[in-house]
């Protein structure tokens, strides 16, 4: 499954990059969402994937019996999902506010910080 997941991740990353390079800022946001999904899957897959055996210690035992899913990447992915969500929410708020002030979603026209006039030197 790691090989197939690697292909899925490649597809997600390619789509994310393409979307992030778009002029419309909303597409950039979509790209960001896909990218964070790809990142989570990457962490997960590089810890190897074990089907159908959650990392639990049965009652009466000191350690899991047999091969179970790798717990560490799962914990990391949990953290990453939440942080990715925080990032997304903040970016969305930024986009929302930017649109309200600049009345455009075209990132080429969002020149508040680096206005065109300054470039004449």
């Amino acid at each position, binding site marked *: 499954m790691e090989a197939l997941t690697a292909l899925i991740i490649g597809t997600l990353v390619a789509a994310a990059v393409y979307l992030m390079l778009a002029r419309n800022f909303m597409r950039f946001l979509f790209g960001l969402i896909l990218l964070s999904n790809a990142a989570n899957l990457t962490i997960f897959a590089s810890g190897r994937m074990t089907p159908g055996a959650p990392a639990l210690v049965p009652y009466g035992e000191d350690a899991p019996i047999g091969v179970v899913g790798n717990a560490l990447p799962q914990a990391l992915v949990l953290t990453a999902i939440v942080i990715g969500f925080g990032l997304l929410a903040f970016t969305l708020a930024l986009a929302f506010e930017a649109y309200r002030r600049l009345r455009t979603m075209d990132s*080429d026209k969002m020149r508040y910080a680096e206005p065109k006039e300054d470039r004449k030197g």
Partner: protein
Amino acid sequence: MAEDSDPNAPWVNVAGMTTVAITAALFVFFLLYVPEVAAGAPVLWSWDWIPSLQIRMSFWLDGLSLMFALLITGIGAFVMLYAARYLAGHPQYNRFALYLFSFMLSMLGLVLADNLVTLFVFWELTTFTSYLLIGFSHGDPKSRRNALQALLLTAAGGLALLAGLILLGMTQGTFEISEINAAGSLAGEPYYLLILLLFLAGAFTKSAQVPFHFWLPNAMAAPTPVSAYLHSATMVKAGVYLLARMHPSLSGSDVWVWVLTIFGAVTAVFASLMALRQIDLKQTLAYTTLMALGTLTMFLAGSTGYAITAAMTFLLVHSLYKACLFLTIGVIDHATGTRDADVLGGLARAMPITATMAALAGLAMAGIPPFLGFIAKEVAYAGALGMALTIFVVLMSLAAFALMFAVAAIVAYRPFFGPQGALPRKPHEGPWPMLLGPATLAVLGLLAGLMPGVTAHYLVEPAVAAVMGAPDEGGRLKLWAGFNLPLVLSLLTFALGFFLYLRHLDLRARLARIEARGPNLDARWDWLLERFMDFAKFQTRVIQTGVMRQYLFATFTVLSLAILVPLILRPVGGVTLAFAGLSLIEWGVAFLIAAGTILVVLTSSRIAALVGLGVVGIGVALIFIMYSAPDVAITQLLVELLVVVLLAVALLKMPYLDPSNRQVHRPFDAALAVVVGGLTTIVLLAVVDVPFDRRLTDFFEGASWTEAFGRNIVNVILVDFRTLDTFGEIAVVIVAALGAYALLKGGSRRAPEDEPAKGEKE
């Protein structure tokens, strides 16, 4: 400058007098070492600084550094006393005292340092402190510009020096100068030439050799005490000091001899001609300083005892008379309000003490017996006769010394005994704190000449021994060395110098005409700086376009290269695509994610994009479920839900994705996207191909129950083993929430007045 000061203001204050006292105490401290060092026993103080890099805070007191230390502290104390009176009542006098004192300490550190890195640190400190001193009148743009010019030039040289000394230290295996010098000449060793050239770049910029000379006369924007200090004992002599200090290891090759002789000689003659051309007496002195530096460099080219003795004697003489003359010019400026050579004259009656000391210093400068200047000149001629390129060196020395004679008369004779012009103020004698220093220095110049044996034994010969790296035979400093070729040359110098003085007004006009036609390096410098700024602007325009897509494109391109280049240079083995044994469900999930992704990319509809994102999110959650990560799957589903809700709310208030309802496709972006995606896949495949290291996993599986008493290992990791991560995660979410809240809330309040372009933009 002096104009800002109030002559009647009280001039004794704590800041000023403390610096004077400490400097004087340091002078006495070093004076106590004179007998010991003269006996041939250098002193070493040393502390570990950064032992792992062989950097020690080590100080080495031998003849050379002692002579410099005495000049720095001795002249320093007088200059500080003088400055206290000169700048009395100046609102920023305390600051000035601090700068001057820091400069003195940096210079002292420089000449005492035995570790190359320590030396460099002090070298740069002198650069910075002199920048502050030259730019002291910071209200004046010219002063700021000249300070910056000095800083940039000397700091550029400093960088060259840094490269050189690192190279030297690495090749020699030690950064201690005394050890490097003890090993003798490096000529012929690998990197010798490069090291030498880098050191020379540092020394020549610091000591203002042609063609880096132009910053020095400009540095005259500084108050007079600074000029006296910078240009007599210190700053500019730092370069010469470096050459002298490294003489045992860096000399001994043809390159050393030729480069030093030619640069030194050209600087000396060029500078003395320029000195003759000036009208401002301070500028005249500035150029004679250049002449002295050139002469010193020229004599350091030699390796004979006479040449080095000449350099060291001249160094001593020059420091004494030049500091004295600078301070004298300051007194004149202070008393009359002008430094114009054409106006000043007949001041001897009103300023008898100043006139006397100017005369003493002037005689030393002109090289009249029995002053030390005369002895220095004799030794110099004797040294010149024994050097390589003999005829060239002798002729250049003759020209320089003759011009020096003429300049000495212009600076020290004419203002006091020459015809008087219209002075802005009625001249009066200077106050004692301003006379004490120059008077002492002038008298010392005479005494040192009257007792050449003492001077030689305690100061010059130990310094010569240090420069040569071996004890010298000595006994070269004599008032009467018999009727020989140097004496003839001396007499010739007087005759030529006297003639030049008589004709100097005529010569000045002629030189001014020649100068007007020659290249103006100072203007060239400004031009260079402007081009540099233009280049910076051009670069900013190209790199910083202000278009986010271009930044991102660059970022992703660099990212791909960062992965691609190592992949090509060091290929990873065995990237295999194994799909054997995958169930239909697994293929189905993969297809689901791919379909969702393609939908997001291709659609122009906001709702369809949202659906696509949701499908991808659920597909990812399904993978987590299938592969033993139920906790992750639950979180993923919850978050995915929130994302979709948030996006849906926001999208309602936003415009369509494509206003024209047709998405423009971008082949270049698509190509880059495919490259980045493909590389990610390859890297991941390579990662999963290497055997898995289970140590961490085993630890967590074993310790989850036995140590942390939890049966869900993922949960135990989150809340126990890696609690800090979880804490950080919560912090991030809170910060994001607060940030978003502030944005949305604050924005709505400010929006009305903040939106002048509303309705115009689109």
